[in-house]
């Protein structure tokens, strides 16, 4: 008598929660590297710049420089870590070959995209919140409008997470990813008003800054703390949302087409 035909199990759900859990666990297990290290770096910037410039520079009329600097450093760290999370995860998995474990199961490109982006946003928020909590020991900085802070945090980390997915897919070597990070992400974040208000720049560089979408993430985020900013928060949120949606579209197309994944 021949054996019965085995049918696939019928109790299978979505792989998304597990992929999200795995991406969260991946950075949480190495928290010293992924959370503590960027917090320490941001605090070093804070100590050095605050020591040198406190009392010499005031921004938005009355805001002391150290207070002005803290949201900038928070957002800069959030952006860089949101980018690093999916890009390093993808390139490590591709180079070591273990990406096959998420390519073989029935996980759609939307589920892969959502898991990577949400985990990266979570890492960005962890880093940002920790910097703020530690900075409270130096400066009592309280949000003026928590909703704006949350909106800009999530959207800005989302932009960088999506860009991280694109970079992680495009890069074939760690060297290429490092180039993406060092020649695009780091300059774009440093030159976006982390350390200064663009009103302190000459008109030409002010105009250049307005073409940098990262400027709007930091400016809008600061509005949440001071209820004052270089440009309207509504303009900032429109730019940030537009950039996020455009990058989402690009990253989803790449994942759907299996770009450098399924060939």
């Amino acid at each position, binding site marked *: 008598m*021949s*054996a*019965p*035909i*085995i*049918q*696939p*199990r019928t*109790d*299978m*759900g*979505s*792989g998304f*929660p*597990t*992929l999200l*859990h*795995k991406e969260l*666990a*991946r950075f949480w*297990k*190495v928290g010293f590297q992924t959370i503590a290290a960027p917090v320490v770096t941001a605090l070093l910037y804070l100590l050095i710049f605050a020591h040198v410039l406190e009392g010499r520079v005031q921004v938005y009329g009355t805001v002391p420089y150290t207070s002005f600097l803290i949201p900038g450093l928070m957002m800069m760290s959030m952006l860089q870590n949101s980018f690093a999370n999916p890009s390093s995860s993808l390139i490590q*998995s591709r180079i*070591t*070959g*273990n990406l*096959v*474990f*998420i*390519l*073989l*199961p*029935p*996980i*759609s490109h939307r589920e892969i995209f959502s898991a990577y982006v949400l985990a990266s946003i979570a890492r960005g928020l962890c880093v940002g919140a920790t910097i703020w909590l530690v900075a409270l020991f130096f400066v009592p900085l309280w949000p003026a409008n928590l909703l704006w802070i949350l909106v800009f945090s999530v959207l800005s980390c989302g932009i960088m997470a999506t860009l991280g997915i694109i970079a992680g897919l495009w890069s074939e070597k760690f060297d290429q990813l490092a180039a993406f990070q060092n020649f695009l992400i780091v300059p774009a974040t440093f030159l976006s008003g982390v350390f200064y208000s663009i009103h302190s720049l000459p008109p030409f560089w002010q105009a250049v800054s307005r073409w940098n979408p990262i400027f709007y993430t930091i400016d809008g985020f600061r509005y949440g703390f001071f209820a004052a900013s270089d440009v309207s928060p509504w303009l900032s949120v429109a730019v940030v949302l537009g950039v996020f949606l455009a990058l989402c579209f690009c990253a989803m197309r790449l994942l759907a087409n*299996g770009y450098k994944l*399924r*060939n």
Partner: protein
Amino acid sequence: MPAVSLEHISKIYPARSRGWKEWISRAPVRKGFQALHDVSLTVEHGEFFGLLGPNGAGKTTLISILAGLARATTGQAHVCGYDVTTDFKRARRALGVVPQEIVYDPFFTVRETLRLQSGYFGLRNNDDWIDEILSNLALSDKADSNMRALSGGMKRRVLVAQALVHRPPVIILDEPTAGVDVDLRRTLWEFISPLNKEGHTILLTTHYLEEAEALCGRIAMLKQGHMVALDTTAGLLAHVGGTDLEDAFVRIMHNDDFVEFVA
């Protein structure tokens, strides 16, 4: 419907773009590499099927197309009747693949790895089956060891376990015994053979032809992307002659008269 069905599958890997150098040199467009030429075959439910061929014959490409890791240039592939591209979720639920390369995620233990793999298939609370697999593959005492701490043979056992966490009706073993000791081979076949007797379909690629001769009811042979033989193991030996499958394999691969010997 058959467990596996491949209809006129061809695969051409496009030539690698040289980027800006190609634009500057205006070199003629290079042809891609054709890994598979119009391959068709079916594997019925419950079969133990061997896919043989020398290195570079196209075995892994064929498996990759079935598993959704590569896309066929032309032709259609089905697993348990489900199209691997248009109905990929159901096709992948029906398929377990043991990849050729030893790959693993260094962040996790053996048990975490298997729980994650279950989760990717949408299976929660799968610990009973995971324990059974671990026991059958002699991995129980390594369940809480980090993947990095395992020997090569142990890592290969984990790969087998990962392919089986969702109890797939169709199991593909891509050179599962390459470079492993006799003990693991015996353990592996003692585990896989009963699964086949229960009704699971096994598709095996191997360079150990005595294994294929002992285990496989039918065999297909690929040579430079062409299917050059397809028959029962006994039928193949009877038609080609030779003392054993290794002898028959050598005759087929070195004699063009056997081209397109498909029963």
